[in-house]
C-alpha cells in the first residue's frame, strides 16, 4: 500500500515536473536570455558578418570617390 501510494505520488510529481517544464519553455521565451543557450555566439557572429559588409561598403565608397575624382581631373583639360 505504501509502495503504491509512493508510486502514485512519484507519478503525479513526474507529470507535474514535466508539465512545469512544458510551460516554463514558454515562460523562458519571455526571459532576458538563456545563457546556457549560447545565444551570445549567434549575436557575435551576426555582428561580425554585418561589420564585414560595412567594411566592404566603406572600401567601395573610397574607391568610387577616388575614381570620380580621377574622372573629373581627366575631363578638365
Amino acid at each position, binding site marked *: 500500500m505504501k509502495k503504491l501510494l509512493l508510486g502514485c505520488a512519484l507519478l503525479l510529481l513526474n507529470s507535474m515536473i514535466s508539465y512545469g517544464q512544458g510551460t516554463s519553455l*514558454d*515562460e523562458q*521565451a*519571455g*526571459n*532576458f*536570455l538563456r545563457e546556457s543557450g549560447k*545565444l551570445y555566439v*549567434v*549575436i557575435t557572429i*551576426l*555582428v561580425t558578418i*554585418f*561589420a564585414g559588409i*560595412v567594411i566592404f*561598403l566603406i572600401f*567601395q*565608397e573610397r574607391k*568610387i*570617390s577616388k*575614381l*570620380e575624382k580621377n*574622372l573629373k581631373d581627366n*575631363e578638365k583639360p
Partner: protein
Amino acid sequence: MSIKQTWWKILCVVLVTYTIIAGFLMPSPALPILHESIRNLYFHVPMWFGMTILLLISTIYSIRYLSNNNLVFDIYATAAARIGLLLGVLGIITGMQWARTTWGAWWTNDPKLMGAAVGLLIYLAYFVLRNSIDDIDRRAKVSAVFNIMAYAIFIPTIFIVPRLTDSLHPGNGGNPGFSAYDLDGGMRLVFYPAVLGWTLLGVWIMTLSARIRTMEVKLMAGKGIFHSSRPLSKILDSPVS
C-alpha cells in the same frame, strides 16, 4: 568625406548593429506558434519597409527626370529600384523561411504573398523594359513613365488588396498586425530603429550603385557607345541633391 555627408551612414551602422544585438537580447512576448521567431519582425519586416521607401525614392527621381530630362536622375531612379527589388527578394525569401515554420508551408497562395510576388514581377518587368531600349534618352523616358505607374500599382497590390480579403499574413484580412502584440513587449524600441537602419543601408548601397553607373555612362559616352541626341557631358554634370 565630410561628417556632413557621412553622418547618416554612421547612424545606419549604429542602428543595424543595435537591431542585431537588441533584437536578440530584448525580451519577446510569449506567443503561441511564433515563439522566438517573433524576432523576425526586426529583420523580415524592415526589408519590405525599406523596399517601399526605396521604390518611393525611385518614383520621385523618375518624376524629376521627366520634369528636367537630367540623365543623372534616371540613373538614381534605376539604382533605387534595383536596391528596392533586392530588398524585396530578400523579404520574400525570409518570409518563406518564416512561413515554413509557422504556417507549415514554404508558399501559400495567400493574397499577401501573391501581391508581393506580383509587385516584384512588376519591377522585374521594369528592368526588362529598360534593357530592351538602346537609345539612352528614350530608355530613360519610357522607363521613368513605367516606374511611376509601377509604384501606383505596387502600393495597392501589396498593401490594400490583401487587406480586403482573407489572409494568413499578420495585419491583413482581419488578422491583427504585430502592433497588437508588441505594445507590451517593448518591441517598438527595436522595430522602429530597425526599419530606419535597414532602409538607410539600402539607400547607402543605392548611392554607391548610382555613382558607379554615372561614371560608367560618362566613360561610355566618351567612346560613343550610347546613342544620344544630346552631348552627355553637359547633361551629367549637374549635381544630384
